[in-house]
């Protein structure tokens, strides 16, 4: 099955494409809403600002295309800011609505520890995405995170617990960068590719 990687100017698409291919996926990179709407397996990457990323999705009709694909039965993996975009709301400089595919809200870290978090962190995980890496260490770069999300499948601690991954039916999200998390990251991508 083909994996459709959403090409956006607010993401480091090349690295994720390479990681997906290494994990065994046949990768198609596109920003065409028509192609995205028909996809069976979608990956939504993102770095930087939630607001800019969400704006790009709506301006290009990609938000609707993602919703259509998920309704039709596609599985979806959000990565980093792509993971945050799945939630109802992010509180990055005011409040911005997300895709609303995952319940919960994204907040800034409280600042007791340095923000952004830059580095490896151990997660306690469950669920099919983490089969074989339930106690994995992954690479994070984030200033914001969901906390105690109802659909949480992985939790990490950075001056307090935060949601490191979520799953609701066919929709998955990982706050970390699987493409920078060496073998553990590739393992998660393989699990997503194999998931049906």
């Amino acid at each position, binding site marked *: 099955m083909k994996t459709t990687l959403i090409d956006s100017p607010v993401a480091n698409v090349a690295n994720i494409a390479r990681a997906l291919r290494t994990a065994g996926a046949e990768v198609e990179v596109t920003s065409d809403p028509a192609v995205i709407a028909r996809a069976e397996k979608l990956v939504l990457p993102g*770095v930087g600002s939630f607001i800019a990323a969400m704006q790009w999705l709506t301006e290009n009709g990609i938000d609707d295309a993602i919703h259509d694909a998920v309704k039709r039965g596609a599985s979806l993996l959000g990565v980093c800011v792509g993971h945050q975009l799945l939630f109802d709301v992010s509180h990055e400089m005011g409040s911005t609505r997300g895709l609303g595919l995952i319940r919960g809200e994204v907040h800034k870290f409280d600042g007791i520890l*340095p923000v952004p978090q*830059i580095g490896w962190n151990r997660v306690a995980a469950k669920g099919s995405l983490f089969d074989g890496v339930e106690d994995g260490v992954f690479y994070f770069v984030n200033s914001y995170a969901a906390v105690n999300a109802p659909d949480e499948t992985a939790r990490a601690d950075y001056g307090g617990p935060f949601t490191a991954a979520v799953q609701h039916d066919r929709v998955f999200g990982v706050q970390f960068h699987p493409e920078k998390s060496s073998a553990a990251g590739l393992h998660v991508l393989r699990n997503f590719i194999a998931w049906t």
Partner: protein
Amino acid sequence: MDVIPSLDLLGGNVVRLLRGDFANVTTYGDPETVLDSLDVPRGSRLHIVDLEASRSGHPVETNIVRRLATRGLRIQTGGGIRSLDDARTWIDAGAEKVVIGTVAADAPEVLRTIVNDLGAERVIAAIDVRDGIVRVGGWEHDATSSLAEVLVRVEELGIREALITDISKDGAMRGPSFALYRSLRTNLRITASGGVSAISDVVSLGRIANVGGCVIGRALLDGRIRLAEARARVATTNAIPERVIPCLDVRDGRVVKGVNFVDIRDAGDPVECAMRYEAEGADELVILDISATDANRTTALDTVRRVSESLFIPLTVGGGVRTIEDFRALLRAGADRVAINTAALRNPQLIADCAREFGVQAVVLSCDAKRTGDHFEAMVRSGKESSGVDAVEWCRRAEELGTGEILLTSVDRDGTNSGYDIELLRAVTSVVKIGVIASGGAGSVEHFRDAIEAGGARAVLAASLFHDRRLSIGDVKQFLASEGIPVR
């Protein structure tokens, strides 16, 4: 790991004595005002030392303890407790536990009476050590028992907690005696005291078996450590691994090596090296481009592109970055982070500009520091020329400007294999919140441990040591793990 604020009382005030000297007193004011300023939450443990009592042998500051106990603090009080009556006086004043020193070292029968009457859970044995010898009586006389003997005696009485203070470190702000605590063989829960002067000290103590807490005095009072931040760091101590980072010095598309840039010789293909390092467990890779000319920068970009395409760990690239466009070009070529050195010293605004353009996470300050008299100077041009800027102050400023991490190289130690410069590391890690990567001087697995444990580094970097296979990344990680330092 309990992080326990400690207040020394003298004449109703919070004070500090330098190395136990009553003639060398710093006064911080009345205890309640001090506690408010330190943000000590209800339910927190609080360590109180009655200094006058430790000298005279009779409890003095009982009224203060009575007042503080009403703030919901779990107080442990010490200082000159030499009898059951003294101990009871403190418990009656509201202390949860008594901290007993002199008696524990010299007169076990008195200690036994106190334990039998109050219960072992109310007693903490305090042991003051200087140069491995137990000290008593306000630190002015040597005790008659060895540390090992005292620990055994304390344990036999049923006591479960001992407070061990290295007097030579106390109040001197140079870090605690990690080696002392690591050498202890005991079932007692050890609370460490003396020399804790940076948050990393708290974290490092928490990693030593037996150490269940530490008391912090002067560093809290002086604002060097914030209690909430220390507790947050300790809570994540075991979840956030410390990183081991190999470095490739690259010139004209090849890995090269040479001490102090002299006698440079070819040492391999960067892609092969990078892949080998990731397989060995490298947490990140640093490429330093030491190309001499602009023409060769194009080759450097190509090297970065080829290496990044073969890696699934973060890649940091530095060397010759002068402008925001150089920075952008390296990110486009596949670097996750870019290190800036000389150009930032000449134009500090470059750090802020790059942070705004690419995010703080992409910016690494590379600081080459050289010991000059009693301070460190930031060097430019590959460590050859002084900038005249104080290295520690420069790192602090770079954090404000927006660097995500600091790659701190000791020019003095680079290529010597004699160990990282711990003093330099401590000087920087104790004044910045962001991570510091230690560089320059690694020669043995212990050096890596010391950079993290005593130096407070969040990552350790080495080039030729790994390149020549004198140590593998696996060797280093295995040793760090055996010393209680979490690794991936």
